[in-house]
């Protein structure tokens, strides 16, 4: 019993981390129809800068607040001055974000070196919780709670605000939205910056678990893509369910059939692609 409880919590914690990671990618992907390949870079830059900020100030909270905003600003600049020039040219945009991925990766290698940095947790989350015979790290509980809060916030924004309805409409039919007189380039920029914000946030929240190291940008991008494919484009609910599913399948896969550890995360993706190409909750496909 203890095994199942601990592993379920592990799976949920990993799933929530994946959700933070994939939510932004899903929105940008759904709205702009491009895979933002710099999404992984935003994650990695968030983690690295978070590492530096925590190292200098000792404050995890400061990093959580400041760093995602800074990366959102970076995303804003990138979209406003680079991507917007190629509005509608998906292939050019993919190439551009791919080029940016390499530039950010090389910059990080040059500035932070080839080492793996693990961010230090805030002191009050460093310990573990003991309930009966079960010991579980406090930080993972924090990750679960944060994931749920962000998911709720997002759901509220998307379903209850004007911006949210514009985004949803944009995902469904971008041309019609433009025809209604909504400034879609500005909407795109806002969503792109929001995606960058979420990626950086997941970099910091995930930093004490996953760490920041060269190549993390690619790994993270791949994971986020898997979730988006399973959950469906542009759907926050899909990203949430997809993340939980992948987190749980991966955790139990590793614990029960460790020989297939590399396989368990991609198997659900392959099955979904074959049976339901639009994803579980995809609005389009």
């Amino acid at each position, binding site marked *: 019993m203890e095994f199942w409880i601990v592993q379920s919590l*592990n799976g949920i914690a990993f799933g929530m981390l994946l959700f933070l990671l994939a939510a932004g990618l899903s929105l940008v992907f759904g709205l702009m129809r491009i895979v933002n390949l710099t999404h992984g870079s935003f994650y990695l830059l968030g983690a690295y800068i978070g590492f530096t900020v925590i190292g200098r100030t000792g404050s995890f909270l400061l990093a959580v607040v400041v760093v995602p905003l800074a990366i959102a600003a970076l995303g804003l600049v990138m979209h406003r001055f680079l991507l917007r020039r190629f509005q509608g040219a*998906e292939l050019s945009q993919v190439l551009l974000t791919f080029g940016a991925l390499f530039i950010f990766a090389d910059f990080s290698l040059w500035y932070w070196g*080839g080492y793996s940095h693990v961010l230090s947790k805030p002191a009050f989350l460093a310990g573990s919780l003991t309930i009966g015979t079960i010991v579980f790290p406090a930080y993972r509980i924090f990750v679960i709670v944060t994931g749920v809060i962000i998911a709720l916030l997002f759901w509220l924004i998307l379903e209850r605000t004007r911006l949210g309805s514009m985004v949803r409409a944009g995902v469904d039919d971008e041309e019609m939205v433009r025809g209604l007189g909504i400034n879609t380039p500005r909407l795109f920029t806002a969503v792109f910056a929001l995606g960058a914000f979420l990626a950086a946030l997941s970099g910091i929240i995930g930093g004490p678990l996953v760490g920041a190291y060269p190549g993390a940008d690619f790994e993270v991008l791949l994971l986020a893509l898997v979730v988006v494919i399973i959950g469906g484009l542009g759907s926050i609910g899909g990203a949430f369910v997809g993340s939980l599913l992948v987190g749980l399948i991966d*955790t139990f896969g590793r614990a029960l059939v*460790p020989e297939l550890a590399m396989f368990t995360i991609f198997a659900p993706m392959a099955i979904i692609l074959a049976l339901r190409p639009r994803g579980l909750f995809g609005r389009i496909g």
Partner: protein
Amino acid sequence: MPKPRHALTLSVGVLTVLVAAVTGGMSRGAFAQAPAARTPIKIGVLSPLSGPLAALARDVVDGARLYVDEVHGEMAGRKVELIVEDYEFKAAVALTKTKKLVERDQVHVVVGVILSAAVLAMKEYIHAHEVPFIVSGAAVAESITMEKPSPYVFRTSFSASQVPPPLGKFAYDKLKARTATVIAGDTVGTIELVMGFARAFEEAGGKVVQELYPPIGTTDFGPYIGKIRRDVGVVATLVPGADGIRFIKQYEEFGLKGKITVVDTAPGITDIAVLPAAGTSAVGMYATNAYVHTIKSPANEKFVRAFRAKTGRDPGGPGEYTYSALAAINQALGATGGNIEAKAKFLEALRRMDLEAPRGRIRFDRYQHVVQDVIITRIDKVGDQIVPVIVETVRGVDQFLGLSPEEYLKRPRLIALKGTFGK
């Protein structure tokens, strides 16, 4: 505008190509030329300077540079030139970079390499091109210097059949453990290390009840730690580099630290390049090593001082092994009048290496693998530093554990033992 489904398929395709492009690397050819006498001696240094073992990797380069500094850039009257290449902890890239070093730079000797899979990928090429190669990083697979030995491949670091077994006996005799779980990164070298421990532990009388192999690059060890049987006497690990840091921190978070002792079957978590990042989570571990910087000897204290002065940190194993590899090259060059081009004579002299290295006296066996002391340490907090304290030294251990090579080779290979325990 392409249909979204196409956009999706396209993206997956693009990503696949990209991943392949990044992991593949490119190869370049060059024409070999006959080297002129008294030209510099070129030594290729291969190390995974980026990737999960980057922290250990710089020791390889710094060990080599330190030795070259100490001989004022000259061996047997010839200038020495180091050519450093990073292979990103990927076996395929290691082979590409070896070709570059041999064909374009025309190096006389290659040293370094962490990752057994990389050495095994290079071995055939090295043998075919007759390039003397001293494995001086942590590449520990038995087969590197055991079956089908190549006259060109030497090893100054250590082997999985050499360093872990004394710890297996130690865990049974001194730590009084009767059962063990082994956990290793899922790659040939790390698997062989825990198997070396497991065989010795069972021969001492213990029982290995569980084997766990998280892939290299695992970030979340929760599923594995959750699986560890809570009644075992000892957990034997080889989780290298950045993975090791995450493992030992999560081990503590799941409340196992202090309950089940962790022993490192070679310097993984306990490598000095990793230990400061592992911090107090690693205190209380035991480890087995071919070298630790806390060895008390004048030769080692001088080496540690020089290494600290050059780099600002303590030397780890790969630093010492590579420093010794260059000392071995220098010794062989001295015996052959600096004529490295007369390859047969140079190799013969290298085989006769007999050095007072920082770790102690080292020689090669007839399979060109180093014979050395094995040191067992406990990780303690001394002042505000986390240090390996020596608790036992086993003198003059070879890769055949005192058996004749023929006898040893009759036993199953370590890698073949994977999955045979805990059944």
